[in-house]
């Protein structure tokens, strides 16, 4: 009876001390654990971001690889490692050079379409001039009407199709593909779509602005065309005797 009061007081003191210990002093360990977990989360977020980046890059190269396997061309995949070293050229640097068999004037494409042309080759790197640069010109044609013209970049960074025949029925939205008359690109690779057709009254030819199919600033990987079977333009035309006779002729 005499001891009950002090015991209760002692018990309550013990409880409050224990509670304080558990909730405050022992929390130091929890705080350290919390800091450790935060660090771990940051590490995992960094790792996740790295893996995501690798996955996106792998997907892009997988698309290129699939195209590489199915396209009737011999191509070499290359990664873009730099852009616009000089202000006056629209160019990019790829990680393949003479040691990989790259030569100047080779065409550069993606699974979407034409990118540009190799203009300089170093030992381990090459410089690719984009289609939007005025120093690049390739032959192209309207996919539906088969009218041919010259595709060239402009100083403003757009792409134009020049020297279209005056009577060509070219329309906005028509697809433009390579015509295969030059040695660097085979016939039928997608270049873009006609955005605007212009023909002044005094002009001999029509011209059109092209929206490129390839988004140049977002490119991360490309394919360099190392070999393809160009159309044999040196072959002599068939003689009149070998042509099939028109139906109904005697």
């Amino acid at each position, binding site marked *: 009876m005499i001891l009950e009061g002090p015991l209760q007081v002692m018990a309550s003191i013990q409880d409050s001390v224990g509670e304080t210990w558990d909730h405050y002093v022992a929390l130091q360990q929890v705080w350290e654990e919390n800091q450790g977990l935060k660090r771990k989360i940051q590490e995992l977020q960094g790792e996740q971001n790295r893996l995501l980046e690798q996955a996106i890059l792998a997907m892009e190269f997988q698309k290129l690889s699939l195209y590489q396997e199915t396209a009737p061309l011999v191509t070499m995949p290359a990664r873009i*490692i*730099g*852009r*616009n*070293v*000089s*202000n*006056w*050229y629209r*160019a990019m*640097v790829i990680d393949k050079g003479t040691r990989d068999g790259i030569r100047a004037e080779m065409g550069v494409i993606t699974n979407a379409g034409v990118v540009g042309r190799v*203009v*300089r080759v*170093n030992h381990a*790197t090459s*410089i690719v*001039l984009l289609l939007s*640069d*005025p*120093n690049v010109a390739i032959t192209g044609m309207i996919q539906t009407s088969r009218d041919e013209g010259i595709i060239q970049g402009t*100083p*403003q*960074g757009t792409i134009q199709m020049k020297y279209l025949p005056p009577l060509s029925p070219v329309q906005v939205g028509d697809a433009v593909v390579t015509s295969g008359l030059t040695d660097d690109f085979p016939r039928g690779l997608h270049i873009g779509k006609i955005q605007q057709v212009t023909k002044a009254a005094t002009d001999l030819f029509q011209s059109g602005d092209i929206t490129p199919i390839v988004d140049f600033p977002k490119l991360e990987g490309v394919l360099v065309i190392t070999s393809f079977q160009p159309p044999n333009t040196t072959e002599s035309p068939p003689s009149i005797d070998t042509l099939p006779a028109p139906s109904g002729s005697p």
Partner: protein
Amino acid sequence: MIILLHIVLCVGTVVAQATISSWLSINSMYPDLCLVLACLAGFLTNEYKGLLMGLTVGLFQDLLSPGGIGLNMILKGLAGSLAGATTHTISTVTVPAVVMVTLVLSLVCGLASLLMAYPALDGAETFHAISRILAPQALYQSVLAAGIFWLTHKIRQSLSVVHFAQGRR
């Protein structure tokens, strides 16, 4: 050792130009970091070091650009040399002086590069290139060079104060 440091600086600048210059671009206008480096080398040292730094960084830039080898080397070498020569013509190289000289050198180098890259430009296209690209770019480069010059000047001053204080002790 100093030569190695200069080469590393030149290579680093060209790599930065090829990779991270897009971060510095304003309205699709890229600063020519190599020209800025050549001019700063001239302003902060003398015309000979400016010339050497300009030639080196220009050569590395030529190796990674589609134009002919030698153009950037000559232009950057001249820019570094002329920037260095201004340290003799004016008593103290100030930030406004850096802005003015870099602006003029950027305009001249840019115009030469433009004419070499696109010799067949007509009048309207040339006017467009100068007014929309060349002039704003030259202004941007001159402000960038002045900013780095000011920063370097401040660091040098603080270092010299530390040396002076250590000498007094």
